[in-house]
């Protein structure tokens, strides 16, 4: 049965008709042409589909689209709208934190939520926050370096 719902994606209201069991990832990619969230494992393990819901990182592959109608959603396509998002993107480029790029949008959104809530995050905080995002190129070292590059030293 299709359900008409209004999703708040990156600040714009999108009216879509979805199946009751349709995931947010499918809606974003196949109805709204927002391809930044990737379909990796479809099991919530790899983190490539991570988006922000009510500002918090969640798995788009495990979220029902029709259940997201009350919550503002942010995808990688809107990350460059504020300074923190842009700083993270630049740091990823400058420090070589992108290899194949498949995990990058999930890494960036997860790191964004971390540094927004804890601007002075340290190594262990970054490792814990990114523990649910897999990089199959295994480029973790530079990803963590890039996030720490944007983090403010404690007390500054």
């Amino acid at each position, binding site marked *: 049965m299709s359900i008409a719902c209004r999703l708040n994606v990156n600040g714009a209201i999108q009216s879509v008709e979805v*199946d009751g*069991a349709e995931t947010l990832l499918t809606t974003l990619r196949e109805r709204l042409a927002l391809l930044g969230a990737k379909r990796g494992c479809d099991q919530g393990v790899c983190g490539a589909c*991570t988006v922000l819901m009510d500002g918090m990182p969640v798995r788009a592959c495990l*979220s029902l689209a029709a259940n997201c109608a009350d919550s503002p959603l942010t995808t990688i396509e809107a990350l460059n709208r504020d300074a923190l998002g842009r700083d993270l993107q630049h740091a990823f480029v400058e420090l070589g934190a992108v290899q194949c790029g498949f995990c990058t949008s999930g890494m960036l959104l*997860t790191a964004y939520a971390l540094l927004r809530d804890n601007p002075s995050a340290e190594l262990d905080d970054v490792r814990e926050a990114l523990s649910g995002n897999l990089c199959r190129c295994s480029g973790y070292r530079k990803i963590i370096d890039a996030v720490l590059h944007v983090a403010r030293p404690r007390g500054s």
Partner: protein
Amino acid sequence: MSDTVLHRPATLHAALELLADNPDAHAIAGGVSLVAIINAQLLAPTALVSLRGIGELEGIRATPDGGIAIGAMTRHRAVAAEARLRGPLGCVSEAARSIASPPVRNMGTIGGSISLGDPGADLPPALVAVDATIEIANARRTRRLSAREFFVDWYTTALEPGELVTAVRLPASESGTACYEKLVRVAGDICIASVALSVSSSGTARAALGGCGPAPVFSDEADALLSRGLGDAASVQAAGAALGRVAKPMDDVRGSADYRRMLIPRMLARAAARAFAQLERAA
């Protein structure tokens, strides 16, 4: 394209009525497990009843008897951060902190997690160790079961068709301590084995194991031995042996049954040493 009806009731009563009227419907809480199961094509539900947004199922509150009630739709993130889950109840928040990854803890709920009855899950042994009570409702009545009674078998709980977990109640906590020890292959994985241990300052101790059988493993004999004192190495060793006798571990990708049998007394000893040190520091 599947053809699934998604109901979004506003109240618990409406959700329970929908489940009563639609025997094939599945309740969906955070979706972490259920949507993964649908994505794996292990289930093609004709109807889902979403519990998201039902206010009476959300949040953590103190109860008149001095205990704590955690609404079924409370996210792991909130349980992990709850300051009132301290002392002998601390293993519940520690177990919640160890679940999967931060984004999954932003989605998953205590009611959904325990209703799945996953033998490797983190909250079930913690809830058994603190002697939690599970509140259950269907459209006609409510009932309560101890955590010991709630977890029945592999992916099987005492929930009957049409029933939902509505809350988890934790008893009034005197002072004391608790800990949750989890052995994993990599961060975020389901445990190979885990131990939850809760101790009151009067010395009463309860332990439960995860990943070592179809449901959390516990033993009155082990609890009596642990209650002799966590500094008593012989008693702790004997408690580990007692738990090992009632455990029913299986071989799986994370470890063999024999390996798990070897782990049980060692992990219990580790948990007991940590809890003992915490009690000494508090004294």
